[in-house]
């Protein structure tokens, strides 16, 4: 089976996030008050072939830990769903 994988990579707490900080600083000037905690990460999407959702999740998490993220500075969450499942 094929599964759509979505990996959401975030900088860990305390790691410099210049993009997030710059956006947050710009918001009041644009009239958006009361917004805080802006952080900018990245999203990686791919399709993976596996026998079931459990194996797809394990493969995606391994890929995430060994390549897509650097655990010293980043965290990630992995979402897996069968291809064509719009949910």
């Amino acid at each position, binding site marked *: 089976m094929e599964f759509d994988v979505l990996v959401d990579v975030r900088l860990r707490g305390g790691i*410099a*996030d*210049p993009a997030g900080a*710059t956006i947050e600083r710009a918001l009041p000037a644009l009239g958006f008050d009361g917004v805080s905690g802006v952080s900018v990460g990245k999203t990686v999407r791919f399709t993976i072939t596996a026998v079931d959702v459990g194996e797809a999740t394990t493969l995606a998490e391994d890929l995430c830990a060994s*390549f897509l993220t*650097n655990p*010293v*500075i980043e965290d990630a969450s992995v979402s897996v769903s069968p291809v064509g499942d719009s949910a």
Partner: protein
Amino acid sequence: MTTTVGVVVFPGTNCEMDAVFAVERMGGEGRLLWHADDDLGGVDAVIVPGGFAHGDYLRPGAIARFSSMMGAVAGFAADGGPVLGICNGFQVLTEAGLLPGALQKNSGLRFLCQPTVLRVETSESILTGRASMGAELSVPINHFEGNYTCDDETLARLRAEDRIVLRYVDNPNGSVDDIAGVCNEGRNVVGLMPHPERACDELLGSADGAVLIGSLLDAA
């Protein structure tokens, strides 16, 4: 016999000829090593130079570390061979797990290209054997992601084991504990963000990097 230093070239590396120049200025021979090859060709030391290996896509060094040549470099390092990572090369060595920690974006949110003053914290490394402890060296930096970070436990270990090789006198990028360069447990792998290879001749504004590149040749 002339000491030969291999300089690894990835797609996007741009400091390899500076490294070769510095090595040859100090009496060694520089030899370029293509990242997709896996043979070090009997070199006596390796430099992983600066640039933007594989475009720095995903993260600096993240893709470069999977190159065949990096497997050969890891083996060379495990056998005690001297390996120096400069700037992007430092990022590659941390991603490859040859050095601890990681390089995050500069705390001032700016790309920095300027001279810095480095203090030699130990002469027990392949980069500082010729240098005196406490010596201050003018060496330029040229980076956006040069802010060294690691967890508290790693930092405590680096301090206790005297593995912080160089510190910034005036920290330009937010690096934890003013760290500019660190070494591995064996002290034969060193990474630093500043560019000693660009400071090996007074014509370039400083010749203070010569003692560092010279130390690498001594260690080879």
